[in-house]
């Protein structure tokens, strides 16, 4: 069996041989299939590779992507997705956990570094209540989840359009990002301090962040087996 990563890399290389017109159709198709998180990743990459091979071979005989995918590529993609095996629950769960750990890791790392920089100018409050910290973590996870779903939705809405308007997508994604940041800031300010108070130095955030990022990477590699 070909490994998923290998397939993705092969796909990246082979795709360069598509002509401009075919590439445009194929890449929309590729992103549409890859941003569908319900389906098995390995099986999707296999069929994406089959289709790429097909396009490349057809291209030699002057066949266009429109002839291969039919007049409605989105409907065709939906038909393919419908017939692909579903992602296993275990690997979806591991994927979600790895994303949460990664997000918390980046946050903790950034927070640690910001604290160091701040501490150069003024003493930094290291006491934090457990209730506040955990609530914040839940809020971040929520934002992360909604963010990913929204982001994929925005990407998918820009696909299969005769006239590309990528600017609209950027503006929407930018607004979503700003919104997420605002919610996070509000949460930091509004969530009251409660529960036992612990003291966390900046280096604990940094090390904790690094550990979480490492854990995220390891878990994510398991989710793809």
């Amino acid at each position, binding site marked *: 069996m*070909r490994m998923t990563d290998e397939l993705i890399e092969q796909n990246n290389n082979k795709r360069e041989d598509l002509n401009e017109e075919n590439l445009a159709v194929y890449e929309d198709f590729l992103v549409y299939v890859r941003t569908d998180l319900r389906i098995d990743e390995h*099986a999707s990459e*296999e*069929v994406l*590779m*089959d*289709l790429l*091979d*097909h396009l490349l*071979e*057809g291209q030699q005989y002057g*066949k266009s992507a429109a*002839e*291969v*995918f*039919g007049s409605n590529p989105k409907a*065709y993609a939906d*038909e*393919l997705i*419908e*017939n*692909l*095996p579903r992602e296993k629950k275990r690997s979806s769960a591991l994927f979600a956990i790895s994303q949460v750990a990664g997000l918390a890791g980046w946050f903790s790392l950034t927070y640690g570094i910001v604290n160091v920089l701040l501490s150069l100018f003024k003493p930094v409050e290291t006491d934090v209540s457990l209730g506040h910290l955990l609530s914040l973590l839940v809020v971040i996870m929520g934002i992360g989840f909604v963010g990913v779903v929204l982001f994929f939705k925005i990407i998918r809405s820009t696909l299969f359009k005769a006239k590309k308007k990528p600017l609209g997508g950027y503006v929407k994604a930018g607004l979503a990002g700003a919104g997420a940041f605002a919610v996070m800031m509000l949460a930091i300010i509004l969530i009251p301090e409660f529960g036992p108070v612990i003291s966390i130095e900046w280096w604990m955030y940094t090390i904790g962040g690094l550990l979480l990022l490492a854990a995220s990477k390891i878990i994510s590699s398991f989710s793809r087996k």
Partner: protein
Amino acid sequence: MASRSQLLKGVLDACVMAVVEAEPVYGYELSQKLQQIGLPDISDGTIYPVLLRLQKNGFIKGEMRPSASGPNRKYYFLTDSGKKELEEISEEWRQIAAPVSELLKRSGTQ
């Protein structure tokens, strides 16, 4: 149009299995063969959802092999349960094909 493609969809699974049974093929070859046979409304891509469905049901199996034109391709084989399924469909087809075409021919000319 819609009804025609619905009808074709049902038959296409069997056609794909029949081609694969005769000789293992990869995607591009398969679509060319089906078009050569003369089936209407087969765009190249039509076969891939069918291939996925047949694999899911365990009727065919894909395997990487070097192709005649050089690079490795995923060739499809009929499995044992695929052979059985194809036999059953063929038998069913034999039973309905002649009477149905006779019936439709008559009602078409009236």
